[in-house]
């Protein structure tokens, strides 16, 4: 099925199941510990051996010697596999650094070997007995130093110029020219990378933890030089991904190598101290923003340049993405520059592009509003646009940013905010309020599903879609239930298996809308087949209350499968509506923060997100996603930072004690409001992504609230107390 004209009315519009706050269908499995995660599966052909990965002890250079003799003699050891004795590996197209390093070392903790033993403890013990000698090379680890040599990019990351930015900025009545920085960050998901791998002849099977099953299958096939049909990937439950599990990682490669070497299944969970340097991360950015306005507050020039770094062959953090689309203004400039660094691989994490981009842009907007003496909500409203400002002939499919801002301001009590910073106190605490716009593009991905109707009236959905804690199982069940006129209890959902039709997978907040659209398409086919079996006209048949009705006839849906199961499979493909209409999601974040006037500690007191993201498929799971995203925003604003050792080239705080994410005590009351929308130009579901929207802008809303509290503007994230302490009010 191809979606190439705006959706008319369709069975989803009934919203008997879709749009309802249905409990997670997999909730009981998870809360009772019965949902098996990658490391825990028992469905393997033999008792697994345990692998322990050895990471490089230097960031750049070469392995000159690897002595494995002692390790091999240790009790229980079955194999030690390194580049020296591993089969020659191919390389997938999605990871930059090699997943098995050696002799060349490309980054710290790059996997250099795996030790396989009968028990985990034996494998770990023997791994520590492998002696590796290195020759250190010269690495580049400092973005600020590498910045002058950073290069422009092409394609979707190329510079954009609209009108005469330089001229308009130079002549603007009000000007802002500021630089902001965001640090390297890590996904820090609860479940580490984990895989159980085994070989049957020349076929490879894995239980793994991965967001994108079809990509993973393709990348495993490329790495092991196998035809894709020889690879079976399963990942039914995932303990958090946040972009870190979009791609094939070392756990799966090393487990497969280990399994090949010892002829048994091998399981590997990446040890936590290796997680932060072995894996990908969100790269640091340096962002320069220039905004010029007239005296009336209308933006006449807006320019956003961003520098980031990655290993040779890697990509940039697209932090200028939202600046192309968020505000009006005739004269525009965006530019990305990429420097080569020898830190671990930079890649997607939690709303890549917009999350760090808005952390900078939405402080800049706050600063311009202040220069203008204009309320920051009003300034944003004034500069709203209903068309793509770089291509004014292209309207947004639906854009309710202004409503989000105005509705949010009312709900939050924005009128109580003091215009002048540092003026509101509550005992020892300085109090401030901040706002930021939320913006994230909607992306649609091809997505297929198979649906089966059995004679007991149960519909089973099969698709390789993943549920990374987001609620995919639930919204897919709701979609099939709505389409087939069934209660959710009559739908079974099977996910995360590469033997199922390839779905959109989970990433870039495309999963919900795309995967349910694929299920919609398959269900349209199933409805046709069921109606035909029942001798009804598929064009007029209605599916409701477990029945199919046409004209004055009705029959139980189950009866359609009396003579045998009906199977329907379909793929949702996307036409050019995304080209004709800019499809994006919008929101407004409001934050009240308190800063201890003595110690500079910041505590967020209240948060509110108002989101406009098309039809909300399940307000309960959507709210959970948004409050999780808001929590990530607080982390990014106040504490998350991979500390780079610029001499030795690694992230020093590489465990969950050193890399701080918010704890419960950091998170106050969070309000989430969804505007009642349905975007017919996006999909038959009329839904859009929402998960990452909840993060986009939060950091800046916190930063603006902190500024409003203290009067000290901090432009370098995270806003730890040391950055404003010396400028806080003098103490008695």
């Amino acid at each position, binding site marked *: 099925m191809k979606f190439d004209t705006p959706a008319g009315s369709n069975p989803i519009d009934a919203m008997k199941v879709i749009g309802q706050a249905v409990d997670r269908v997999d909730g009981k499995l998870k809360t009772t510990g019965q949902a098996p995660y990658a490391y825990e599966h028992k469905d393997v052909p033999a008792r697994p051996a345990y692998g322990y990965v050895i990471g490089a002890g230097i960031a750049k250079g070469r392995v000159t010697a690897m002595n494995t003799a002692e390790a091999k003699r240790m009790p229980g050891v079955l194999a030690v596999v390194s580049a020296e004795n591993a089969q020659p590996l191919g390389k997938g197209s999605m990871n930059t650094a090699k997943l098995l390093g050696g002799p060349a070392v490309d980054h710290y903790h790059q996997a250099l070997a795996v030790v396989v033993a009968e028990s985990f403890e034996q494998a770990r013990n023997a791994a520590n007995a492998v002696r590796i000698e290195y020759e250190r090379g010269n690495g580049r680890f400092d973005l600020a130093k590498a910045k002058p040599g950073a290069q422009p990019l092409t394609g979707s990351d190329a510079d954009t110029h609209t009108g005469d930015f330089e001229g308009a900025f130079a002549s603007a009545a009000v000007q802002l020219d500021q630089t902001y920085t965001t640090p390297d960050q890590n996904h820090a998901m609860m479940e580490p990378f984990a895989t159980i791998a085994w070989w049957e002849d020349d076929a490879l099977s894995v239980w793994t933890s991965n967001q994108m099953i079809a990509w993973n299958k393709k990348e495993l096939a490329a790495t092991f030089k196998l035809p894709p049909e020889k690879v079976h990937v399963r990942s039914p439950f995932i303990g958090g991904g946040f972009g870190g599990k979009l791609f094939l990682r070392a756990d799966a490669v090393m487990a497969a190598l280990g399994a090949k070497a010892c002829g048994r299944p091998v399981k590997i969970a990446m040890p936590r101290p290796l997680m932060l340097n072995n894996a990908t991360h969100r790269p640091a950015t340096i962002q320069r923003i220039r905004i010029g306005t007239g005296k009336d507050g209308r933006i006449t020039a807006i320019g956003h340049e961003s520098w980031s770094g990655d290993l040779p062959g890697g990509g940039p953090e697209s932090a200028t993405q939202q600046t192309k689309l968020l505000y009006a203004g005739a004269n525009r400039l965006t530019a990305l520059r990429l420097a080569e660094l020898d830190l671990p691989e930079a890649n997607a994490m939690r709303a890549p592009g917009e999350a760090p981009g808005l952390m900078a842009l939405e402080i800049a907007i706050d600063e311009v509003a202040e220069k203008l003496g204009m309320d920051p909500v009003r300034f944003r409203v004034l500069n709203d646009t209903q068309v793509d400002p770089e291509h004014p002939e292209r309207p947004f499919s639906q854009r309710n940013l202004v409503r989000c801002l105005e509705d949010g301001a009312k709900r939050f009590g924005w009128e109580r905010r003091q215009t002048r910073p540092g003026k509101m106190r509550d005992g020892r605490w300085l109090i401030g309020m901040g706002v930021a716009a939320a913006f994230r593009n909607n992306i649609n991905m091809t997505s297929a599903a198979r649906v089966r109707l059995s004679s007991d009236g149960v519909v089973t959905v099969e698709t390789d879609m993943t549920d990374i804690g987001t609620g995919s199982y639930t919204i897919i069940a709701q979609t099939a239930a709505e389409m087939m006129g069934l209660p959710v209890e009559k739908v079974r959902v099977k996910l995360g298996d590469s033997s199922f039709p390839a779905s959109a997978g989970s990433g870039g907040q495309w999963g919900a809308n795309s995967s349910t659209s694929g299920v919609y398409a398959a269900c349209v086919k199933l409805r046709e087949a069921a109606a035909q079996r029942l001798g009804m006209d598929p064009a007029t048949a209605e599916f409701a209350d477990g029945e199919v009705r046409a004209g004055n006839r009705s029959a139980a849906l189950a009866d359609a499968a009396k003579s045998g199961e009906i199977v329907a499979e379909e793929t949702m493909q996307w036409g050019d509506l995304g080209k004709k209409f800019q499809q994006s999601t919008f929101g407004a974040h409001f934050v009240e923060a308190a800063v201890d006037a003595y110690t500079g500690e910041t505590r967020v007191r209240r948060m509110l997100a108002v989101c406009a993201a098309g039809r909300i498929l399940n307000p309960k799971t959507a709210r959970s996603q948004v409050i999780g995203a808001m929590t990530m925003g607080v982390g990014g604003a106040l504490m998350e930072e991979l500390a780079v050792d610029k001499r030795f080239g690694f992230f020093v705080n590489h465990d969950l004690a050193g890399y701080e994410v918010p704890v419960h005590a950091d998170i106050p009351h969070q309000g989430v409001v969804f505007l009642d929308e349905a975007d017919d130009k996006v999909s038959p579901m009329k839904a859009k992504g929402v998960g990452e929207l909840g993060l986009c802008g939060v950091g800046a809303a916190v930063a603006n609230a902190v500024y409003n509290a203290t009067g000290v503007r901090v432009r370098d994230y995270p806003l730890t107390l040391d950055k404003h302490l010396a400028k806080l009010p003098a*103490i008695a």
Partner: protein
Amino acid sequence: MKAFTYERARTPAAAAAAVAGHKGAKFIAGGTNLLDLMKLEIETPTHLVDVQDLGLDRIEETTEGGLRIGTLVSNTALAADKRVRRDYGVLTRAIVAGASGQLRNKATTGGNLLQRTRCPYFYDTNQACNKRKPGSGCAAIGGFSRQLGVVGTSEACIATHPSDMAVALRVLDAAVETVDAQGKTRSVPVGEFHRLPGDTPHLENVLQPGELITAVTLPKPPGGRHVYHKVRDRASYAFALVSVAAVLNEDGSGRVAFGGVAPRPWRVEAADAQLRNGAGAVTRTAFADARPTHENAFKVTLAERTLAAIIQENRA
């Protein structure tokens, strides 16, 4: 983790003898820090002597009017003890400011004093660390040092002692009671228990091989107002950037110790005498010899401002 042998001792003296008589042996109590370090092979004991059966898990009143806290009293039990909450509030407040409920259930009084630094370079065996491997150098100096020490440090080591509890014990003038392999006991003031690193940062306290902590004693209640203020980047479950333990009297006199700044709980008695002259006077004395890095110089300012907040609240 390296393979090790294990035994459970029956008496304190037998435990001490077992460790003294076995090269590479260590005591284990709650294990909340030791086991982590063993997994990373930062600690590689060949033999563990488990002291959990020694019965040293009671809090008793001393004839001097103070308390004797058995070394195996859990952090949770110590913080919850009615007498501690009433008479030594700074200790309860310090303990509950540290770790998590689960860790405090397992962690012991003696073990808390003996926990090792959380310097990230100490934890990464690829990096030079004089504390982990004497003579190998200190990668933390010139590296990521935001969390590390500003005073009492040396050219060889800038690590901090991570305990909150120990900072409160220092301000309370607690003492550490021990027994050695010969059954000989002694009492060491907590202020003399931890060593400064000098050029031997691997030697962290004055315990002799095999010497076992049996109890921590508190003198009679000091009165005054008890405060523990711990400052960190998130609201819970993080080590202190700076912490301040204070016992303040109504006349403005009192005593104060700082955590998160030095290789041991940091108290300078001459600084106590400055309390009536304000926080700046106290910290100028307490941190007179500070040698912060450019990343952690803020800790000196933070110590002053945190103490100022405490003094201000005491006046109010």
